[in-house]
């Protein structure tokens, strides 16, 4: 492990990571506070609206039943598009920095002119990415735990349940990051790499809605990253979704490895 590469990576990613972590803490805190208290008052009315029910079920990936209980709102706070957008943004922005970002801004010559192997560069980026993810989700967890203080203690999910959701979300973060690393390793332009990963995630997001609305789409549900991240089930049972987490980690690892191999063998040209 090259300490200099780690320090370089931290130095370059720190500002964006701290900003996104602060935003995620705030968003998660507000959602966890507002959803159970404000929306809870309108739950009966909301459930009578078929569109609303479909949207919520699509987000949660599970049937919400006849009643919107505080646990449902807690789960919504973890799948809210704002939360997913912040987590995905961190993964995409970070993981497209090397090599596509370095090639794009022309600094790759300076970096690879140093006595480091491409794998060293790739691994240093990954280590900092994983650390940044831990920070991001720890902050989200803190925001969430503060936000749910508005819920009656008996309805509040335990710390263990929150932890399971956060670990599941971290696995999704790793999967998205692995995909972004792979796309970045193939390309020359960071903007293009970001667009490709964003496009894949949008497809994934839309697919999770389609699955709820159109029965034939269920056969493709496994292609959606949200299929492996279902906080409502965790809130209800408190069980670890081991299968889903392993699937996400496996996707992430396969994409990451493919990206690393490609980066190590490709020609580096400036654009």
């Amino acid at each position: 492990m090259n300490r200099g590469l780690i320090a370089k990576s931290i130095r370059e990613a720190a500002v964006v990571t701290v900003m996104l972590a602060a935003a995620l803490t705030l968003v998660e805190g507000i959602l966890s506070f507002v959803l159970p208290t404000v929306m809870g008052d309108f739950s009966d009315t909301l459930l009578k609206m078929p569109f609303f029910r479909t949207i919520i079920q699509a987000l949660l990936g599970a049937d919400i039943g006849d009643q919107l209980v505080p646990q449902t709102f807690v789960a919504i706070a973890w799948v809210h598009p704002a939360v997913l957008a912040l987590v995905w943004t961190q993964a995409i922005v970070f993981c497209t920095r090397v090599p596509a970002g370095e090639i794009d801004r022309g600094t790759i010559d300076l970096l690879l002119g140093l006595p480091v192997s491409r794998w060293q560069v790739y691994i240093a980026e990954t280590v900092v990415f994983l650390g940044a993810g831990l920070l991001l989700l720890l902050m989200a967890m803190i925001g969430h735990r503060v936000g749910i203080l508005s819920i009656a203690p008996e309805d509040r999910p335990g710390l263990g349940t929150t932890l399971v959701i956060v670990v599941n979300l971290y696995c999704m973060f790793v999967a998205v990051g692995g995909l972004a690393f792979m796309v970045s390793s193939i390309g020359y332009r960071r903007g293009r790499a970001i667009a490709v990963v964003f496009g894949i995630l949008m497809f994934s997001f839309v697919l999770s809605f389609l699955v709820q609305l159109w029965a034939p789409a269920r056969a493709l549900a496994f292609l959606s990253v949200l299929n492996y991240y279902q906080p409502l089930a965790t809130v209800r049972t408190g069980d670890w979704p081991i299968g889903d987490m392993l699937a996400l980690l496996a996707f992430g690892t396969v994409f990451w490895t493919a990206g690393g191999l490609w980066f190590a063998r490709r020609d580096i040209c400036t654009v």
Partner: protein
Amino acid sequence: MSLRIDEGSLFGFLGPNGSGKTTTIRVLLGFLRPSEGRASLFGRDCWGAGRQIRDDVGYLPGDLRLYPTWTGDRFLKLFGLIRRRDITTVGRDLAERFSLDMTVPVRKMSRGMRQKLGLLLALAHEPRLLILDEPTASLDPLMQEQLLRHLRALAEKGHTVFFSSHTLSEVERLCDRVAILREGRLVANETLETLRGRARRRFTIRWVHVKDAADIKPPPFLAIDERRNRTWDGSLTGQTPELVRWAATQPIEDLTIGHPDLESLFRRYYEGGGGEADTP
């Protein structure tokens, strides 16, 4: 292309834009895999052992881009960490010599300052081999002279300088050996002395009478480019003593013989008239 560079030499790598100079450098640094053949530095394969090789190499890219928010001091600190050696002492010494403020972030630096910082980063770890791609770009003449002096001093200490440029004059001022590249092929690899010996000298003859200038037939060792009034301008295709001997027998008022004209020799190489010299 077959090219061998001796340690401690000042090696000029010349060629017009697009001739393949930068591509060759990228192969040497392990950025590109050779489509055929093999590139090695210090006896090690450039693609397979790139990391180890680059430990002993200082590289200045032709199209230098630096991290915009970093200062010179931060570059020294982090590059030292990456290289696992302290480069701050030499780096600060070079900064003083180059008159470079190390506390200014790159985004606030002029192009010349950035180039100085790039040079400093290439030199700070005192590498065995320096690969400099168009290093004098954006430098003022004083700084260019200082850089050339510094490179000469490094070569005297046994460091090797690989100096890529498309400008003959700076290579001529610095290097002891020159390779010329054209369309990806090496067309010359000679000492500068040999090339000077091969280059033609320019001459000017002023005749006593206009009639002489018009009537006298030039000998075969003179190539006349222009005749005007009493004057002939051209280049010497033979030896200087031949010209002097012949001139002594002619009604000549004045004869001027210039230095070997490397510029036109290089132009001939660049344009394809200099012949192939694919020698190691």
